[in-house]
């Protein structure tokens, strides 16, 4: 089908309805958090030993290098623990913002203060690392300090978290099953963290699993192993695995044509335009007034962008931060899958419906899954194509494709041109002349 028709069918619908829903949901989530508070008070009253299955771990970043670090356990004992760990599965099941928030706020973080250097013999840290390394959630019993802080709250800027409690000690109530590859990485103190992480990814661990091990200081040269705050570790692992894939695709043949993909999730609309030529990447973000992270006081769309050339980046991005590395990973995975390299522009429009931050994983997943389903050139002659999320379409040239997409973006072409390096111009090679 023609790209113009394709893009027209993608026009946002029911936006107003979604916005109203979002307003309502924010009250619902506050109610939910009160329930969690009550439930938790019941569970720990008069008994400071708390046992349940831990699907994940958390490392804070305040006070670095002396941080709060803990294991996360669902407060309701009958809850399915694996359902509470962030994974690509959340996208697959179509979790919405409130679903994510209710999962996050239902987790008790039993934590201790620790030096990020992980002093030897700290049993709590070892248990935390076993939880992180395990392929399944692990039963853990935690000895809590008498006065848990069960104050949960929701504000516009911070991802809501569940209750915190101070842990005195912890014990594994079962023997965790640790994948062989993870055991190998944990046990090898001569292996650089980036190489070990790349190995785990190649062995089939998803970035979510690699990140948990990385965050608890499980990878790297023995003396350099550190606890890495969860938030930093997410982007660090996206970058490490991204660099690993970047190296792979640099020698792939060029895609040699233009393809456009679209997907949307949680109030985020994403277009991925792949073009002929060597690897070049850019993320351009457009954030609606009223959405999270729009710092503009003038009620205009906030724009941010970052890009890299064939050789990749040498410095951390100034704008777009974690979303850059998350979306780049999604694109690189696709190119690695199809054995090609290409120029790639990701356009992310964040709507007002994105009313609470759920974490950068949703950017990774919306991009990863944009490539699913039949590809544009296979569908080109198929008049039944509904143009739903995941379908690609072909266009004459890279700039033609972005021009078409630009009709559906919430900003003018002029603003896009000012902000986007790749919309403005793409790098040619000497072989083209």
């Amino acid at each position, binding site marked *: 089908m023609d790209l113009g028709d394709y893009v027209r069918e993608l026009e946002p619908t029911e936006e107003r309805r979604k916005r109203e829903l979002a307003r309502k949901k924010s009250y619902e989530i506050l109610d939910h958090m009160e329930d969690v508070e009550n439930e938790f008070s019941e569970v720990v009253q008069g008994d400071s030993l708390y046992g349940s299955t831990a699907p994940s771990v958390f490392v804070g970043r305040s006070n670095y290098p002396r941080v709060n670090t803990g294991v996360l356990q669902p407060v309701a004992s009958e809850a399915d623990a694996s359902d509470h760990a962030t994974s690509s599965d959340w996208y697959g099941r179509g979790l919405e913002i409130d679903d994510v928030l209710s999962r996050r706020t239902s987790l008790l973080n039993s934590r201790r203060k620790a030096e990020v250097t992980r002093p030897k013999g700290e049993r709590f840290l070892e248990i935390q690392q076993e939880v992180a390394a395990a392929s399944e959630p692990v039963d853990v019993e935690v000895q809590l300090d008498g006065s848990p802080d069960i104050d949960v709250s929701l504000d516009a800027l911070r991802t809501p978290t569940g209750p915190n409690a101070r842990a005195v000690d912890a014990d594994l109530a079962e023997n965790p099953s640790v994948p062989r590859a993870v055991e190998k990485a944990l046990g090898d103190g001569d292996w650089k963290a980036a190489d070990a992480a790349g190995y785990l990814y190649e062995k089939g661990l998803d970035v979510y699993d690699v990140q948990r091990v990385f965050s608890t200081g499980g990878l790297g040269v023995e003396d350099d192993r550190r606890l890495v705050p969860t938030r930093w570790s997410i982007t660090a692992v996206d970058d490490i695995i991204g660099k690993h894939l970047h190296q792979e695709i640099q020698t792939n043949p060029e895609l040699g044509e233009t393809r456009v993909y679209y997907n949307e999730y949680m109030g985020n609309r994403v277009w991925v335009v792949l073009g002929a030529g*060597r690897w070049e990447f850019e993320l351009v973000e457009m954030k609606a007034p009223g959405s999270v992270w729009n710092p503009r006081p003038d009620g205009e769309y906030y724009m941010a962008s970052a890009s890299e050339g*064939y050789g990749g980046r040498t410095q951390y991005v100034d704008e777009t931060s974690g979303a850059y590395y998350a979306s780049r990973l999604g694109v690189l995975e696709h190119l690695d899958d199809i054995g090609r390299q290409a120029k790639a522009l990701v356009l992310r429009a964040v709507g007002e419906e994105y009313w609470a931050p759920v974490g950068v994983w949703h950017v990774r997943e919306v991009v990863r899954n944009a490539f699913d389903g039949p590809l544009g050139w296979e569908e080109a002659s198929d008049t039944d194509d509904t143009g739903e999320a995941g379908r690609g379409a072909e266009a004459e040239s890279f700039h033609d494709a972005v021009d078409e997409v630009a009709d559906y973006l919430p900003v003018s072409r002029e603003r896009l041109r000012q902000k986007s390096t790749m919309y*403005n111009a793409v*790098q040619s090679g*000497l072989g083209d*002349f």
Partner: protein
Amino acid sequence: MFQAKINAGLLQSSIDAVGVFVDECKVRVDSEGLSVKAVDPANVGMVELDVPADSFDSFEADDELLGLNLTKFDDIIGMAKAGDVVALELDPETGKLKIQIDGLRYTLSLIDPESIHQEPNVPDLDLPGEVVLAGAEINRGIKASGMVSDHMAFGVEDKSFYMSAEGDQDDVRVDLTEDEVISLTAEEDARSLFSLDYLESMSKAIPSDAQVTLYVGSDFPVRMEFELQGGDADVSYLLAPRIENE
């Protein structure tokens, strides 16, 4: 056979000129002198370097092709003081390069030239704009452009040469008329856009006092030719443009 003595300053600026694009390269030596032709891994920038035999203090060579790790070589030559003479000799027994700088001897293992990126074919380009100006002028335009954007344009129009950059906030433009440059020939107006990543590193290798001949076309590579150390070596750069969205 290869045996030569060369002024450390000339050798250093030659390495710098090639190092803009590559970390390793093939060095050709023959009775005429030493030459390098290399293209960066992205195939965006190319350099040609020629150091004629009579620019050396002494020079003897049969046809040889040396695979050089430029990063290592740069470190070694960095040990030399201004005015030092560097002696280079290919050891026929070991195939290694013996380097001697004022009593310091260093034996450098060479790389198999076959393992290095192929030497590029130089595209034959017809570029309508030709301007000759001081290296300092170009470097100034590049530096100012880098303050506002990650790409900049070179162009000729109305008998003048210009460099310009548009950022999302600020703009920069340098106009140099026919009278303000050493010479200017323009068969037609032309303009091409380039990545400042590349230009900024090229700029470091362009001597301020050198006379640079710059050839520009429309959405075509830019060619820059200049001499090192007052004519002891010739450098030619070719850089592929960023193609603008019309």
